[in-house]
């Protein structure tokens, strides 16, 4: 076996088995945690625990089945898509940037208002995926305010105005 990657067939199945074991662990946790659900005396033959037990068992069975399938040499098919290069290695940096962009948005949305927080999200994600940051920021700001105005004034859905509290189109 060479270290060079020569297609997906020779990829070490370690992460795949780890995920499948994660499913098994989730199942075990489900069973244990189901045990902690209080069963009121009034409840009938089938109380609030039974279905959780069943789901826990299903998770364990499915996880074990996936482990066995991987060991038999049947790896999972990563989902295809128009913009997906299935054979590319994972780009962890871009992934982290996108997640950070969303986290930043969540942290800012109540403080700055939805429009600006959405502009931040748009800018970070577009930049992470390769767009020019300045242009992305301009598009993001315009989009953020337009969308907020449409939703608040047109569709009557409240979004936080943040620092623009009191501006007629944005706060509802």
């Amino acid at each position, binding site marked *: 076996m060479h270290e060079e990657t020569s297609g997906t067939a020779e990829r070490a199945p370690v992460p*795949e088995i780890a*995920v*499948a074991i994660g499913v098994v662990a*989730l199942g075990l946790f*489900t069973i244990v*945690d189901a045990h902690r*659900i209080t069963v009121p005396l009034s*409840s*009938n*033959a089938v*109380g*609030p625990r039974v*279905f959780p037990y069943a*789901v826990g068992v*299903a*998770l364990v069975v*499915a*996880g074990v089945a*996936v482990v066995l399938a991987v060991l038999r040499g049947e790896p*999972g098919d*990563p989902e*295809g*898509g*128009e*913009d*997906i*290069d*299935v054979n*590319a290695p*994972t*780009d962890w940096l*871009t*992934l982290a940037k*996108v*997640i950070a962009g*969303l*986290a930043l948005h*969540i942290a800012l*949305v109540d403080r700055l208002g*939805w429009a600006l927080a*959405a502009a931040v*999200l*748009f800018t970070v*994600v*577009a*930049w*992470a*995926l*390769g*767009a020019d940051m300045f242009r*992305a920021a301009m*598009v*993001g700001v315009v989009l953020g305010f337009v*969308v907020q105005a449409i*939703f608040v004034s047109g*569709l*009557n*859905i*409240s*979004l936080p105005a943040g620092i623009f509290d009191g501006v007629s189109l944005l706060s509802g």
Partner: protein
Amino acid sequence: MGDIGSLVDGFGTALQPTYLLYALLGVTLGTAVGVLPGIGPAMTVALLLPMTYKLEPTGAFIMFAGIYYGGMYGGSTTSILLNTPGESASIITAIEGNKMARSGRGAAALATAAIGSFVAGTIATVALTLTAPALADFAVTLGDPDYVALAVVALITVSALLGSSVSRGLASLSIGLLFGLVGTDNLTGQQRFTFGLPVLGDGIDVVTFAVGVFAVGETLWVASRLRHGPLQIVPVGGGWMTRQDFRRSWRPWLRGTALGFPIGAMPAGGAEIPTFLSYAAEKKLSRHKEEFGTTGAIEGVAGPEAANNAAAAGVLVPLLTLGLPTSATAAVLIAAFQGFGIQPGPLLFENEPDLVWALIASLYIGNVLLLVLNLPLVGLWVRLLRVPRPYLYAGILMFAALGGYALNGVTTDLWVLLAIGVLGYVMRRFGYPIAPAVIGLILGPIAEEHLRRTLAISQGDATALVTTPFAATIYTLLAIGIVATLVLRRRAKRVLDQIVHPEQVDPEVVP
């Protein structure tokens, strides 16, 4: 028949100018979002759901109907003009349609897809109109054990049929069921899997889950391995459909409809299998076999595209009459109904006749609008394919965040959204199909409630689950069905393999 009168009343409602406007808005947005690459019908509906939160139910559902059908039309444009395979139900359209587009017959391929979608959508909506009320009347007579049986059928077939690996489908389904358990137990008021967190006390919202797992998950998945290099969009070339094209298309349209509607309407349906079967049938029946896989055969676009749209209408039958979602899109639609305090199921036709019939009437209207929107305006939609990818996915994430926030107006929902998005990423990365999780989330609580009510009435006697004639029949059919579909599936897969790797199967077919 009283149903015709109800349908006329439905048209009376749906043709009011305001509702026509909602329908037009729905089909336009649905097509526009559906055309965007990376966005399937389920994600289209989930992303556009927030727009309807403050509408009154009839207007909202007319708009949903438009979004639902529009998303289907839009998806076929994408698969014909982009030479990379998208979601599985349109993969077949992508194969022949893209070959046609590349040999300069793109306009004809788009036209046969659009007209085929219209023909199939309209015939299937007629079939829906005729079968749904009768099925609803029958469904009223069903008891709790019967619903358990139906839910079991839907759950098992969904996990077995969606995606290529049964064990991963089951894992995905179980994850969805687990998420469905989170919250306060309906029957006893006990907290389950909430970790004492108030945000989880009301359970995990289906819309949050769908937006998280589809939109956020897809964006993360794309971010992790974006296809770089120039976009390859095939220009729309060639003349419109000729008389010969029509002659070659109309039978496939009808055959595709005949395959799509019944299979879509079964609790075990979905749009994937009928498109595969339609493709196989057209290839076998065509007098132009040499065009399949080479220059692109119009039958291979017309049939599967019709099957796809007929199945979409078929899926509405169990959705409206039994409250059973059999596709991820249907699960999101059920969540939308529930958001308005309306429970789809056998009583829907009795309790909300105005709404249901307006919805059905708007399906007819939506189809006509879509034909008009798609034939002359296709060039406009094609431009959407050129949206630069960084902006596209940044926009998707922006709307996902909007949907996650607008529901309750709290940021904790957004953290849940992010966490579910990461889950969606992991599932895509390791080949766990997404749809079973979404369906499990909505179907789990329904199944549990009926199960516990059955056993409460029978005082714990589990045989009550299988002793009603209907339930017994269903379980028997399920056993037969599993065997049959596994066989069908294997055949469908072989067809697909032949299409994707023709050189491996018959090496003599080399241009």
